[in-house]
């Protein structure tokens, strides 16, 4: 097939980068047009991505790769370039769509903010780095973009840096993800050391790690492969908020809501999943690593879902839901179901971005994030409510919304592999998910207003905010039909392997039942006029409820186990620095200063003083000579 547009794929990350540079240089002058520039750059990237996609329809489309030498280090050459596989073209589409819609949305959301141009510049930089990450042909380049998106995330979480909570959250996000990044870096170094010709290209990794035999042929032991895979997974854990490195993601909700939708729901946090999918061959040769991925993913899915049950902050509920859904994706990858995992990433990006943008629309209108202070918003914010309902149903796995199809694919994979435990965990997590989304929806959007004053000021958001909601709602509705049990083309297209027939009626029934039961339970407990029953329930299970509300005390645990000891060490080092190192320096300076002061007193220009000094010097010399007993000559 002719590749006309693929050779211009380098422009996809470059266009937003240019927008970033222009916004940084001229942002102050073009203030109002900043959002327009951001929007146009994302749109251009989207159009180009779609054009590239059209060239890759056929499942056996060649991998398009182009690299140039960057650094020559003796035998080793580091290369940069871009590579197009079906997986990363899919990611390009997801990232550019969400980025475009978020740019449009942010125009309304950030209206009146003094630092708008900075905000849009950061978004453009983020979009550029994320797209660069996706098209990277080798791990080193991926790692650079990986750090760049982390830096953008830091900047955007802390965008309102005058709030102490935002500053703390930004630092926490940066530091916690850094722990994961170290794992990834070590994995890259191990690969660099072990791979033939020190190659870090994904295509080479794929051939080397094809099977146990090809590994042995290149002299890589299975143990090393497991280490590499596990360390890569640690990197993915940090970025994708997997337990135990999940704590930063809910705190990251301090950032502006469009950012939560773009970075902390749809794209950057999915980078971990993407990384595992991209280097999947490394995982595939190591059953241990696969078990770790599946185990951590499954645990995170259920763990975060239970926390979501007891949160009151609308964005935090969604954040824990994101953590839980990312756990789902990891679980799918750990089960070897790459297609299902990536498919869930794809649908999740749309419906979770939709939910976050909907939540942003609500927060924009009522200026509170506590769902128990809202209530009855459905009557005033029709578009937001309807689109939010669609997103919630997609997340809850109600057919025919997109979430159902992808979640079903994952559950079917667990079922077929006879992984009972993970299957049960998946179903339970799906049930909890449906329950907390129903709770959120019924409490916030239906019933009587909880607070009249807040209700009075509620209003529908401007069209720049509702249009992205509608577009995403449509996508959340239809994205699932890409890959249903009845057409497996997507699987072949994505992984090149014939799709297994995952039409499993029993699994489907169980998955739907879990979703519907969750929603019904949520309705029974939280439907309008049920507040007393809920209060009683919360009192009855107060200790459990407290534990969930406090997020299993994980933050407190880290605080006591890690943060405080480190602080104490830091204090100790600070004291050493202040009193020992600085003390020595101060002593030297004081000594020199004192010496100088006394010697200036001698240098007073009085000839007689000089004479006395000389006399005393002479006498001292004489005494010294006598004391040494050497005589005068």
């Amino acid at each position: 097939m002719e590749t006309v547009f693929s050779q211009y794929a380098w422009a996809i990350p470059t266009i937003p980068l240019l927008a970033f540079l222009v916004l940084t240089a001229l942002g102050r002058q073009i203030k109002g047009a900043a959002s327009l520039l951001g929007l146009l750059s994302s749109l251009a990237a989207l159009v180009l991505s779609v054009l590239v996609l059209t060239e890759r329809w056929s499942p056996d489309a060649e991998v398009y790769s182009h690299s140039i030498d960057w650094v020559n280090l003796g035998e080793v050459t580091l290369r940069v370039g871009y590579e197009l596989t079906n997986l990363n073209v899919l990611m390009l589409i997801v990232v550019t769509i969400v980025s475009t819609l978020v740019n449009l949305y942010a125009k309304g959301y950030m209206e009146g903010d003094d630092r708008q141009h900075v905000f849009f510049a950061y978004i453009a930089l983020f979009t550029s780095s994320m797209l660069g990450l996706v098209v990277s042909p080798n791990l080193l380049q991926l790692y650079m973009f990986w750090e760049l998106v982390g830096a953008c995330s830091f900047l955007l979480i802390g965008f309102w840096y005058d709030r102490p909570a935002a500053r703390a959250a930004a630092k926490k996000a940066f530091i916690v993800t850094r722990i994961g990044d170290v794992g990834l870096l070590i994995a890259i170094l191990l690969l660099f050391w072990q791979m033939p010709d020190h190659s870090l290209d994904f295509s080479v990794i794929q051939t080397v790690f094809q099977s146990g035999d090809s590994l042995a042929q290149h002299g890589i032991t299975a143990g090393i492969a497991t280490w590499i895979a596990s360390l890569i997974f640690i990197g993915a854990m940090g970025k994708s908020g997997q337990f135990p490195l999940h704590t930063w993601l809910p705190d990251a909700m301090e950032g502006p809501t469009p950012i939560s939708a773009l970075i902390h729901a749809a794209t950057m946090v999915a980078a971990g999943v993407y990384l595992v999918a991209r280097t999947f061959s490394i995982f595939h040769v190591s059953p241990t690593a696969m078990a770790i991925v599946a185990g951590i993913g499954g645990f995170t899915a259920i763990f975060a879902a239970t926390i979501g049950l007891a949160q009151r902050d609308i964005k935090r509920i969604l954040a824990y839901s994101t953590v839980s859904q990312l756990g789902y994706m990891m679980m799918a990858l750990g089960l070897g179901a790459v297609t299902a995992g990536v498919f869930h990433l794809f649908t999740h990006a749309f419906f979770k971005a939709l939910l976050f943008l909907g939540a942003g629309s609500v927060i924009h209108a009522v200026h509170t994030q506590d769902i128990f202070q809202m209530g009855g918003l459905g009557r005033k914010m029709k578009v937001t409510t309807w689109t939010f309902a669609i997103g919630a149903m997609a997340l809850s796995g109600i057919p025919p919304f997109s979430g159902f199809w992808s979640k079903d694919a994952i559950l079917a994979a667990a079922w077929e592999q006879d992984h009972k435990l993970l299957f049960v965990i998946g179903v339970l997590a799906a049930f909890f998910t449906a329950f907390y989304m129903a709770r959120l929806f019924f409490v916030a959007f239906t019933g009587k207003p909880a607070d009249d004053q807040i209700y009075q000021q509620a209003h529908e958001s401007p069209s720049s905010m509702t249009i992205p909601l509608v577009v995403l709602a449509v996508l959340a509705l239809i994205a699932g039909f890409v890959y249903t049990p009845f057409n497996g083309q997507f699987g072949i297209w994505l992984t090149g392997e014939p799709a297994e027939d995952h039409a499993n009626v029993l699994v489907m029934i169980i998955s739907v039942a879990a979703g519907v039961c969750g929603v019904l339970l949520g309705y029974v407990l939280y439907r309008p006029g049920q507040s007393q029953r809920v209060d009683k329930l919360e009192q009855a299970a107060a200790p459990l409820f407290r534990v969930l509300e406090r997020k299993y005390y994980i933050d407190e645990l880290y605080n006591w186990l890690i943060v405080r000891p480190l602080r104490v060490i830091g204090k100790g080092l600070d004291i050493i620095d202040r009193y020992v190192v600085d003390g020595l320096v101060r002593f030297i300076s004081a000594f020199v200063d004192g010496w100088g002061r006394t010697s200036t007193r001698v240098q007073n220009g009085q000839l007689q003083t000089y004479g006395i000094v000389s006399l005393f010097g002479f006498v001292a010399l004489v005494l010294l000579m006598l004391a040494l007993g050497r005589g005068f000559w």
Partner: protein
Amino acid sequence: MSTMLASFLTLAAILFCIGLYGVLTKRSAVIVLLSIELMLNAVNLNLVAFSKYGVVPSLKGQVFSLFNIAIAAAEAAVGVAILIALYRNRGTANVDEYDDLRR
């Protein structure tokens, strides 16, 4: 013999110390110059004493002391001349007010 030398040397040492004391402590520049003369004369006394009672007595020491007296006279003349010039310039003959070395 040697007692004579010792008393001459003691006298010279006392004379030198008085001169040194005067040089280092007196405020008036004229007294300082006079004290320098004292120190020079202590030296002259030493030279003469050694030429008479020394290990190898000879006239050389006395000749040297004559030279010394001449030089001391010249030095006193030059010193007083400079002092007069200084006095005209600064309006004072106090040594502790001459602190130009400091600048």
